[in-house]
C-alpha cells in the first residue's frame, strides 16, 4: 500500500473510480431506493458522476486536490438533483474548502476533509446518527479516519479505515427506522431495508481508498 501524501492525481482517480462504481451499482442503488424511496438514487448519481467524468479534461495541469473536489461539487449540484445532489454537492464543497490550495494531503488533512464533508451533509440535511441516512455511513467513516490519523497511519490507511467503517455503517442502517428523507414516510415499514444513500456513500469512500492504495 502506497504511503505518501495524496495529490491531484489521487483526486482525479477518485473521481474515475467513483463514476465506475456508481455505474456498476446503478441498478442496485435504484432497487434499494425503490424499496423505501422513489427509485432514482442510482440513476441520479450515475448521471452526476458521468457528468463529472466528462469534465475531467478541463482540469488544469497545476490543479490541486481542492480544485478537483470543487469541480465534483459544482457538477454534482448542477446535475444530480433530488436530495442526494445538494447533500453530496455540499459535502464535496466543504471538503474542497477544508483542503484549501494544498498540493498534497497528509493523513490529518484527509481525516479533516472527511469530517468537513460529513459536517456539510449535516448542515444541509439536519440528520442525526441513526436517522437511517448517508450520515450513518459518514460518521463512522469520519471517526475511523480520525483514529487512524491519530495513530500515525498513512493517508491510504486512513481512507481504507474510513471505507471499511462506511461499509459497516451502511449495513447497519438495515434495522433502523428512517427519520429523514423520503424513507421516513414509511415509518416502521422502512425497517429491514438498507439506506441507498448510505450504501452509495460507502461505495464512494471505497473508491477514495482504492485510488489512494494505487497512488
Amino acid at each position: 500500500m502506497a504511503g505518501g501524501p495524496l495529490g491531484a492525481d489521487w483526486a482525479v482517480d477518485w473521481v474515475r473510480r467513483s463514476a465506475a462504481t456508481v455505474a456498476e451499482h446503478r441498478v442496485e442503488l435504484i432497487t434499494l431506493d425503490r424499496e423505501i424511496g422513489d427509485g432514482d438514487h442510482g440513476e441520479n448519481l450515475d448521471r452526476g458522476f458521468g457528468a463529472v467524468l466528462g469534465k475531467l479534461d478541463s482540469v488544469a495541469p497545476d490543479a490541486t486536490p481542492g480544485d478537483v473536489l470543487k469541480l465534483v461539487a459544482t457538477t454534482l449540484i448542477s446535475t444530480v438533483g433530488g436530495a442526494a445532489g445538494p447533500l453530496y454537492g455540499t459535502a464535496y464543497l466543504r471538503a474542497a474548502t477544508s483542503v484549501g490550495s494544498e498540493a498534497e494531503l497528509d493523513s490529518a488533512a484527509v481525516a479533516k476533509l472527511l469530517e468537513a464533508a460529513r459536517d456539510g451533509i449535516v448542515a444541509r440535511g439536519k440528520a442525526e446518527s441513526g436517522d437511517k441516512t448517508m450520515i450513518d455511513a459518514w460518521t463512522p467513516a469520519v471517526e475511523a479516519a480520525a483514529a487512524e490519523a491519530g495513530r500515525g497511519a498513512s493517508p491510504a490507511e486512513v481512507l481504507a479505515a474510513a471505507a471499511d467503517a462506511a461499509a459497516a455503517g451502511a449495513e447497519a442502517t438495515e434495522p433502523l427506522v428512517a427519520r429523514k428523507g423520503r424513507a421516513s414516510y414509511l415509518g416502521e415499514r422502512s425497517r429491514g431495508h438498507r439506506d441507498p444513500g448510505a450504501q452509495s456513500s460507502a461505495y464512494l469512500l471505497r473508491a477514495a481508498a482504492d485510488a489512494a492504495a494505487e497512488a
Partner: protein
Amino acid sequence: MSVKKIINDPKRVVDESVAGFALAHADLVRIETDPIFVVRADAPVAGKVGLVSGGGSGHEPLHAGYVGHGMLDAAVPGAVFTSPTPDPILAATKAVDGGAGVLHIVKNYTGDVLNFETAADLAAADGIEVRAVVTNDDVAVKDSLYTAGRRGVAGTVLVEKIAGASAQRGDTLDEVAGIAERVNANARSMGMALTPCTVPHAGEPSFTLADDEYELGIGIHGEPGRERLPLEPADAIVDRMLAPILEDLPFSSGDRVLLFVNGMGGTPQVELYIAYRRAAEALAEHGIEVARSLVGNYITSLEMQGFSLTLLKLDDEMVELWDAPVQTPALRWGR
C-alpha cells in the same frame, strides 16, 4: 425496450416531452433548454411578483401545465421523480423577475427543498428578492420529529392557482406569499392507489399490489403508503380517506370548501366522478358546503391508477382568487 411506454429513450423522456409541450402551447409558453425550464410567453411581467414552481417530472400537468396568465410564471421540471438542480431554478427565477420579487412554490420533499434553497441563495446574491412557500398538505404522513414532515401533494395545485391570481392582480411579494401560506395551511389531502407506476429508467413497478388490495396514503412518487388494505367499494374508500382529512384541520359544519378529486394518471374519469359523488355526499352529511370543485388528472404519478381527495377550507378572498381568470395549458377559465 424493457418498459412498456410510448417513449424513445428513457434518458430523453423529459427533454422530448417538454419540447412537444412547447410546440403544442406556443401561444402560452416558451421553453429554455440549457438549463431546461418552461416560462410564460410574456415573461418577465414588469412589476408583477414572479411565481416559480418545479419538481420531478412525471406529475404532469403539474407544473408546466400551470404556466400562464394568472398562475405560474415558470416551471422547472427535473428528471422523472427527481427534483431539479439549482441551475434551472435560478435561471427560471431570473427569467421571471419583473422587479417585484419571486415566490418559489416548493413541495415538501428533502430534495426539492434543498435545491430550491440553494437556488434562492444564489438568486439573492444576484439581488433578486425570493421567498419560498413549502406545501405540505398530505395527511397520510405524520408531521413529527420522526419524519421529513408532511409531503406536498395535490394542495400544491390550489396554492399555485390562488397565489397566481394574487400575483396577477398586483399583490406584493409578502401578500402573495401570505396567501400561498394560507391556502397551504387550509388544505388537506389523502391519496390511494390501485396499481403502481413505473419510472422509465427504473424499468420495474414502484411496488406490487395483489389483485384485491389497494394502497392507502400513497404519495405521488409511487412511494408505498400508510397501509395496504383489501379492495372495497368506492364509497368505503372515500370515507376512509376523508376521515383523517376532516380530523386534521378540523373542518366543521358551516365551512365552505373546495373539493378536489385528483386522478393519479391512469384512472378513468367515470371512477373519479364516482368518488366525487360520495365525497360530496359525505361532506353534506357533515354540514360542510362544497362551494367550488375540481375533478381530473391535475397532479399525477405517471400511469398510476388511483386518486387523491383534497379539501381546502375557503374564505372569501380565496374564492375570489380561485374564480379569477386563468389561461394555462391545463387550467383555463374566465376572460
